[in-house]
């Protein structure tokens, strides 16, 4: 079989197998370890004689380091060394880079950028020394720190179809709105950390990464060593959300110091350093133009976005990604422009593109539906294209209508007042909003090894990571299902770069891609078992350790080991593939203060086969919580005079807390997508955020009658525009 996935696998094998574990809401196999604090994260590996490194961040926004006053700090107790090496990372690596990012910390590209590493015997000594280190700079005085004050240029050719200007002129109804969103930080709860340990020329790095096969290359290239001499271990990752796609400052500086000192070195970023030095999601400005006819059929869509990054970075937040395929309209213009600023590197943060693109599109769709006098759910359903606009490709599968309908029923959409300001409870205006969810689906190259042991147990191995996404659970379930082995006899080993290269965790592709590799390895084992039984593989029935009613162990004189592989193929090109869903939100807006509280939320999602209903649901829940943050509180705010990030910790950058999050209902729709993967599964890791904040914005409008075009929708933006709280 070719590795590439060229024709949809119509067999739906996982519906024929007998074990009955696929899709089940099983507990995570590593759950008890996590609940007991026994799962070992990057900084927690116990190495003898480990020295402690603390990074020193630049106190200027742009310029050069001219002098580091090493001597006074080297004299401090316990201090072992100070590094400001050419090889140290100036920026962290972008997702799937697979090569060294920009190095050399004698130049300062953004405020807080690491310029030195101080290593000492203890963490307290290193911290004190890092604080004391004086650095002289040559400051660049004309650097650009303000996205509103720089020039923008197209980052790619605009996607044009028909004549949007004319469609706007001729439309029965149209809107033309400009929205803004602020920069976001992944803010995973585990700060980036690395422990480096050299054995001769071989480096073992305990780190916190999403994509080991790329991270090995990035680290080897940064250090100038052979890839085969670099091993990365990331068995548990305390959240990633894009921020750990590529290697960052901790990994390279720890490795350099450990090599010099001849002993292990641990480097952990402080929380402030995570905010200041790890990729941000770019702030955006987005112009939405929508045009429709009297029947509420879209005739034109314009989505133009302006984003920023540092000079020489190839990444531009792909804001319009979902607008390309989501709604009809024969006159279209999608365009993305980029401006260059000296602020923290912009890169992938959970659902790059859709996270901020969808919330704005969905807020605009609400306005358009209102202008056309049509219920927003009906308006969306009326505008689903039969094929990908402009390209004529079919959709692989699309449960958007079902998600809108099922969600609406469960949420009680029929209770919504069409006009805003109709429902008041005490000080609070109450309103409801809806939004579609959409996120592109991607299959990525992956490899995994499956062993059916002579004792009847199963071992699944891959360098795939589990960020909390559920990889440990679902990869075991796929193998147990395919090989008819009880789940408690299935072991999964992940997060070791010496294991076969999985797809890595990012772009929502980990489960389907690495899962498909596991699936294929199991197919090879099934073929061997069928052969041993002298039956056709279609006649094979594997359940509870029995193969066609014979103990499978009787067929095995030794372990059966197979490596499965998958690569994206023609199915990726011949179809438009995405996961879909719908969000419903009930929000309360304080009539006096403009504070918004989310009262309840429902999400209904279709993403192909559900591999584990418990972990998939959690992914959706988590995404919706991110949507609440994006809608109401999250913003990286920079001082535009100096480039300094003012919201550089969790007291200033407000992620949702318990009290911000109500009971959230998640509905998982049954779907099989044979085009997406042989598992008939699509990605779910990011879907829950893609549009969620739009539902919040629409609920705010429905509550109090204020359309804000600026996320996050903080009280200060609302308070001056609210209706008279007493007169109403």
């Amino acid at each position: 079989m070719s590795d590439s996935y060229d024709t949809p696998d119509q067999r739906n094998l996982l519906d024929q197998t007998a074990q009955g574990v696929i899709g089940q809401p099983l507990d995570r196999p590593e759950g008890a370890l996590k609940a007991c604090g026994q799962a070992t994260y990057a900084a927690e590996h116990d190495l003898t004689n480990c020295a402690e490194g603390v990074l020193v961040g630049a106190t200027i926004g742009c310029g050069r380091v001219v002098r580091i006053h090493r001597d006074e700090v080297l004299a401090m107790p316990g201090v072992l060394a100070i590094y400001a090496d050419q090889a140290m990372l100036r920026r962290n690596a972008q997702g799937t880079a697979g090569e060294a990012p920009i190095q050399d910390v004698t130049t300062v590209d953004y405020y807080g950028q690491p310029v030195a590493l101080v290593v000492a015997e203890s963490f307290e000594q290193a911290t004190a020394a890092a604080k004391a280190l004086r650095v002289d700079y040559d400051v660049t005085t004309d650097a650009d720190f303000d996205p509103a004050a720089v020039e923008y240029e197209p980052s790619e050719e605009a996607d044009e179809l028909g004549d949007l200007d004319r469609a706007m002129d001729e439309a029965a109804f149209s809107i033309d709105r400009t929205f803004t969103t602020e920069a976001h930080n992944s803010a995973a709860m585990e700060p980036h950390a690395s422990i480096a340990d050299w054995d001769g020329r071989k480096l073992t790095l305990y780190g916190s990464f999403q994509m080991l096969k790329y991270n090995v290359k990035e680290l080897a290239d940064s250090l100038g060593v052979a890839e085969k001499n670099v091993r990365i271990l990331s068995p548990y990752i305390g959240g990633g959300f894009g921020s750990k796609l590529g290697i960052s400052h901790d990994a390279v500086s720890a490795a350099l110091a450990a090599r010099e000192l001849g002993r292990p070195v641990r480097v952990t970023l402080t929380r402030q350093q995570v905010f200041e030095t790890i990729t941000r999601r770019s702030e955006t400005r987005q112009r939405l133009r929508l045009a429709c006819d009297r029947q509420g059929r879209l005739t034109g869509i314009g989505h133009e976005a302006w984003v920023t990054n540092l000079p020489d970075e190839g990444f531009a937040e792909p804001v319009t990604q979902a607008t390309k395929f989501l709604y009809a309209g024969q006159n279209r213009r999608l365009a993305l422009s980029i401006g260059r600023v000296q602020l923290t590197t912009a890169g992938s943060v959970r659902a790059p593109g859709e996270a901020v693109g969808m919330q704005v599109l969905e807020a605009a769709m609400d306005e358009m539906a209102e202008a056309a006098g049509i219920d927003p759910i009906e308006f969306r359903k009326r505008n689903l294209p039969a094929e990908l606009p402009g390209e004529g490709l079919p959709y692989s599968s699309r449960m958007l209508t079902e998600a809108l309908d099922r969600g609406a029923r469960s949420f009680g959409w029929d209770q919504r007042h069409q006009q805003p300001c109709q429902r008041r409870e005490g000080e609070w205006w109450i309103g409801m909003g809806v939004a579609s969810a959409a996120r592109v689906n991607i299959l990525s190259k992956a490899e995994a090894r499956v062993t059916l042991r002579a004792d009847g147990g199963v071992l699944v191995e891959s360098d795939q990571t589990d960020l909390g996404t559920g990889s440990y659970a679902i990869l075991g379930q796929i193998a147990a299902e395919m090989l008819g082995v009880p789940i408690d006899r299935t072991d999964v080993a992940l997060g070791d770069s010496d294991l076969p290269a999985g797809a890595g965790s990012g772009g929502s592709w980990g489960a389907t891609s690495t899962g498909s590799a596991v699936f294929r390895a199991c197919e090879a084992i099934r073929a061997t078992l069928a052969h041993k039984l002298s039956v056709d593989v279609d006649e094979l029935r594997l359940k509870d350790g029995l193969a066609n009613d014979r103990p499978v162990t009787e067929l095995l004189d030794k372990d059966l080991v197979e490596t499965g592989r998958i690569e994206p193929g023609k199915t990726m090109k011949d179809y438009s593939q995405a996961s879909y869903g719908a969000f419903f939100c009930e929000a309360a807006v304080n009539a006096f203060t403009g504070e918004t509280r989310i009262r309840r939320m429902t999400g209904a999602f279709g993403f192909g086969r559900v591999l584990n209903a418990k972990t998939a649901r959690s992914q959706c829940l988590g995404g919706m919580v991110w949507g609440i943050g994006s809608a109401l509180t999250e913003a990286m705010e920079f001082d535009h005079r100096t480039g300094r990030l003012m919201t550089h910790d969790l007291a200033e950058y407000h992620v949702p807390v318990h009290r911000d999050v109500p009971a959230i209902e998640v509905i998982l729709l049954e779907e099989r997508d044979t085009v997406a993967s042989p598992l008939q599964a699509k990605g779910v890791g990011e879907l829950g955020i893609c549009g969620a904040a739009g539902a919040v914005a629409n609920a705010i409008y429905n509550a109090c009658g204020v359309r804000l075009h600026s996320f996050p929708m903080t009280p200060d933006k609302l308070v001056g525009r609210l209706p008279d709280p007493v007169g109403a």
Partner: protein
Amino acid sequence: MATTSATLDVNGEAREFQGDPRQTLLDFLRLDLKLTGTKKGCDHGQCGACTVMVNGRRINSCLSLAIMHDGDQITTIEGIGTPENLAAIQRAFVSHDGFQCGYCTPGQICSATAMLKELADGWPSAVTEAVADTPAPSDEELRERMSGNLCRCGAYSNIIAAIREVMQSEEGA
């Protein structure tokens, strides 16, 4: 370097602190005692990942120096249960998927354990209607009282469900 010493009772065991007076209780647990179940998310009292119980009360161990705890009883996640012998709240976290990455989890569990006691003892919170009354154990009360424990994975509603299950089973018992 000035060193100082203290004796702490950690999960029922006497442990000697001999070291840098600047060391936080959190770093003492993680680095010296190798009790890495207690997590560091911010080192600034802003995330709750480092929550432990000191003499039965929850605190952010990153905001407290080890040397301040001579004679104190410290309970960390390791003292609450083990994978072989899970406490009820740990079991509930597993079955309700009260986590994803698991990094905030020990803090959530230590915090919830102490929080339930505070609630039972009638301590009011910012959302308690009348401070003189026994607070009703509503979801709003639980959420308010757990708001010092951030979870970027967004497992909040599952965490509340897990806590609620423990409350109900304790009532039943």
